[in-house]
Each structure stands twice: as structure tokens, then as C-alpha cells.
């Protein structure tokens, strides 16, 4: 669906993209990078706004920017910046957007109601957009990207300005679109938890280059010998026994223990020690590297 080969974009002397190569065939993909990494430029290349100075960009098998209008007809884009069409209602605005995609007015209005329902706009859809809160504008922005039922969605910071409940709802919608409706999603965000929640794969870019690319599960590999453990009671006695067995223990704010075990220490030993200390293991889980750690390592920061 998205096929980038050594894409370079230069603004004057600055190389905004420096040989980006990646392929996206489906699913929800997170696009991560610090400010100025080239995320927005990459989205502009995909929309055909910016011409690559070198390399080749293809979407749906169509060359960009030569066939940008055909590409734009098939994708939906949700920009980062707040947008509002103050004098019209959300229904009217979305109907207009549908018509711009090439729908008849009747179809566009029907679709407008469906997608506004989907994003949870309720009766607010009939109010003029100048009266909308940031969260409502964000929903309308999302809805306008969905109106023509695209197979590819480019989302730029979709949870900006949303309250925690709205944010969760938005991320659930994104997840559902990718899983149930098989829409390919490219989600550009600074918020790592958002990407972690909604995406299966992540592309990290820094200084115009792809620095890490792969499924989140593969990138956040298990840490050697590090476990998160929680016991019912007698925590001190349990810790003493673990220390005696050669483990290193750290208390976490959540009340869990972070235990680094020696190689000879087997997993079942946690349960044996607990039984010996008259307690029960309630939770034991190998600890993974967080996406944040992976991201920081990828961009070369501590």
C-alpha cells in the first residue's frame, strides 16, 4: 500500500528526509520521532504536497506526486492543527468534504451522518462548528478523513486536545478500524502510549532517517532475568529469602517487586520460596523494554 524507496526531501540546504525506505502493507503503524525528525514531511510526501528530490514514493501502486489526486481520493488524512469551518455545522462541513471526494450530495450527507455517529458527535453535529470544543473539532477532523471509507488513513496527532476518556475512545476507534475494518493506519504521534495502544508496528525516524522499524512486540524484547513479582503478604520475609538466593530486589511504587534473578534461579523457585515463607505469589511477569526506552535508544538519547 505504501512503498517508499530512498526518499529524500530537501528544503534549501536542509535534508528533511534522508533516504527513507519502508513498506507498509496493512495494519496500524505508528510513526514516531522527535520534533524536526521529518514525520510531517513524510506525511506531506505521502499526500503529494512535497516532491521527493530523490527516491521513489508510491501509494496504492501509484507514483507520487504525479498521481497525487488519485492517491488522495483513496486515502483519508487527519491533520494535526486544529481546524474549524465556523459558519457551518459538522454535517454540512462533512457533506462538503464528501462532495470534494466525488460523492453525490445525497450520498455525502448520508455518509456524514454515519461517520459523525461513529465518532460520537451525537446531536452536536447540527451546531455551528464555531461553538465546538477542541475535542469535538478533533472528532470532526477524524470524521472528515473517514467519510469516503478510505483504505488508508494518515493520522497526525489524533488525540491532541482530547480529555482522557475521549483519548481512550479515539484510540479504541483507531484500533477497531485497523482490526475490524482492515483499514491501514499510519499514526504520527509524540505520545508513545498512544502508539503502543493503537498500533502493532512502529517506524521510528530521526534526522530524516528510519532508525527502527518493526512490530512493537519484537522491539520491546524481554529483559534478561528481570521479573515483576507481587505477593499476598509477608513481603519482607519473601524479599529476604530472594536476597539469600542471590536475587536483586527493588520495590516499585505500585507495590510490586522488580526482581533480577541469577541464571541458576528457576521461575518455579518464586513459588517455592513463597510457600516456604507462608505467602502466595499473586503476579509474576517477565519485564519487557518499554517503547520509550527503545525510542530513546533509537534516537540516541538517555
Amino acid at each position, binding site marked *: 500500500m505504501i512503498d517508499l524507496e530512498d526518499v529524500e526531501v530537501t528544503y534549501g540546504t536542509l535534508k528533511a528526509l534522508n533516504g527513507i525506505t519502508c513498506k507498509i502493507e496493512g495494519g496500524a503503524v505508528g510513526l514516531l520521532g522527535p520534533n524536526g525528525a521529518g514525520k510531517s514531511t513524510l506525511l506531506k510526501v505521502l*499526500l503529494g504536497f512535497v516532491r521527493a528530490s530523490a527516491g521513489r514514493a508510491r501509494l496504492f501502486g501509484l507514483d507520487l506526486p504525479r498521481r497525487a489526486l488519485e492517491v*488522495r481520493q483513496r486515502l483519508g488524512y487527519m491533520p494535526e492543527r486544529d*481546524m474549524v*469551518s465556523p459558519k457551518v455545522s459538522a454535517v454540512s462541513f462533512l457533506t462538503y468534504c464528501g462532495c470534494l471526494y466525488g460523492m453525490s450530495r445525497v450520498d455525502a450527507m448520508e455518509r456524514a451522518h*454515519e461517520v459523525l455517529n461513529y465518532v460520537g458527535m451525537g446531536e452536536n453535529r447540527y451546531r455551528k462548528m464555531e461553538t465546538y470544543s477542541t475535542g469535538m473539532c478533533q472528532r470532526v477532523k477524524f470524521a472528515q*478523513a473517514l467519510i469516503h471509507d478510505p483504505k488508508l488513513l494518515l493520522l497526525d496527532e489524533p488525540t491532541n486536545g482530547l480529555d482522557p476518556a475521549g483519548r481512550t475512545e479515539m484510540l479504541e476507534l483507531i484500533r477497531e478500524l485497523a482490526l475490524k475494518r482492515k483499514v491501514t493506519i499510519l499514526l504520527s504521534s509524540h505520545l508513545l502510549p498512544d502508539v503502543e495502544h493503537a498500533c502493532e508496528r512502529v517506524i521510528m525516524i530521526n534526522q530524516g532517517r528510519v532508525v527502527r522499524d518493526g512490530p512493537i512486540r519484537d522491539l520491546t524484547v524481554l529483559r534478561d532475568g528481570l521479573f515483576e513479582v507481587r505477593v499476598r503478604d509477608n513481603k519482607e520475609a519473601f524479599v529476604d529469602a530472594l536476597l539469600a538466593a542471590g536475587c536483586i530486589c527493588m520495590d516499585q511504587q505500585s507495590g510490586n517487586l522488580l526482581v533480577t534473578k541469577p541464571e541458576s534461579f528457576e521461575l518455579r523457585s518464586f513459588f517455592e520460596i513463597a510457600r516456604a515463607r507462608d505467602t502466595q505469589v499473586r503476579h509474576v511477569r517477565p519485564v519487557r523494554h518499554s517503547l520509550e526506552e527503545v525510542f530513546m535508544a533509537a534516537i540516541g538519547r538517555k
Partner: protein
Amino acid sequence: MPIYEQTYRTYEGQLRRHFRWWTIVKQELRVLISQRAFLVLMVAALMHFIFRILQIVAYDIIRMDPNNPINAMIQNVAMLVVNEGMFYDFLRIQSSMVFLACIFAGAGMICDDTRNNLMEVYFSKPMSWRDYVLGKTMTLVAIGLTVTAVPALILVLLHNILAPGWKTLGQTYWYPGAILAFSLIIVLPCATGVLASSALLKSQRFAAIAVFMILFGDLAMGGILSEALHKQNYLIVAFPAALDHLGSVLFKQRHPVLSMHWKWPALYVAIVCGSCLWIVCRRVKRAEVAA
């Protein structure tokens, strides 16, 4: 779709590749018509049209009756006679209403889209900057022609209906062409000028004020030049005078002040329209890339 399932249907319709600019024109007109102030302005702009209808009705009815004592009188009052001069005057007077309507409708057309970050959304649709510029320009042209060409053509038709015959037809057959040409000469600079101002400035109010200031400055400059250099043809610098001159040529009238060849005001109008359009295209194209 079951009511408990929050989803939307797959769109199975055909996405057409028709003219996007036409969609923009329809939407802009729809938004404008929903504003009461715009409707009031349009009604005010058409009051003159109603006055002219009454004039034509009265003139044609009185003229058909040779025994009517007023007949001889109205034939001698140039202001009341229905001829090419009347249509020229009608369009000349309407030009100020075109200006006001274009300011009202067009001053915020581009700057509001820029300020509200709508460009980014619009250009993510299958729409090019050419569609955008054409759509906005054609909206203003449509409004301008509604105030000028449309009522003027109706007046010609009315005149032919009330005074049927080959004589009237022979006198008026060229009016529609002249009306359309003069209407476009009035409307195009207004539309492109207002859009250029809207593309350059950040708010609707500033754009409107800027257009007014440029127009008054231009009028003053024309007056000052013609007075200082003692040559009335320098009045051509005042843009409305250039438009009037072209209108007078089209309607075979003698301009009271200017005596130069029509190609100079035509060139002036073309340069103004071209420059304004160039500004609009440049700004919109830049907005597409910066979106």
C-alpha cells in the same frame, strides 16, 4: 446497521471525478445565502433593477400610444429613454454594488480558510490549487453577474417583450453581448482584487479595508495626476474611470472625460486582473505545499 453496533457502512458508491471547482462554488454560495446580511445586500443591489423595470414598462407603454401627451416629453428626456445608454448607466451604477458584494463575500474567502487551517484539509482531498482558485473566483463572478448581467439581460428581454417587433430587435440585438462583456469587465477585477487581498492578509476585516484603501488611493491618484499635469486622460489611473471608458466603448457612448483609445484601459484592466490572479495562485499554491 443494528442500533447497538457503533460503526459505519462500507461505501459502495462511485467516487466521481467531476469538476471540484463547481463543488466549491455551490458550497460557497450555500454558505453565503444562509447569511441574512448577504441577502439584504443582494436585495439592495437589485433595487435599482426594480426601478429600471418600472422605467422600461412605463416607457414602452407610453411610447406605444402616440396620443399620450407624455410621449413627446419622455422622448426628449435622455434619462428616461430606453436605449444603449440606459443599459450602460445601469451597469455603471451596479458596479458599486458588485464591489460591495464582492467585498462582503470574498474578503474572508481565502484568509478565513488559512486562519482556520482548512487549506490542509481541503488539499488532502482530490482537489488541486487550480480547482480552489477557480472555485473561489467563479463564486465571486457568479455573484457579480447576478447583480449586473442577469438583471440587464432580463431588462433587454422585457424591453423586447413590451415593444415587440423587428425595429426593437434590430436596435437591441447586440445589447446582450455588450452587457456580458461590460459585466465581466466590472466583475473580474473586483473578484480577483478582493481575492488577492484575502490571500495576502490574515483577516477578513483587514482584507476589506485594504481593498477600500487601494481603491480610494487609486481614485485620488488619478485626480491628482490629471489636475497636476493638466491632462484629463491621466484620469485613467483611477480604475473605475478605466472601466467606465471600456463600457462607453462597448455601448457606443461618448466618455465625458477620457478620449484615449480603448486598448489602454483594456490593457490596464488586464494587467490588474492578471496580477491579482497571479498573487492568488501563488499564495494558494504555497498553502498547498505548506499544508
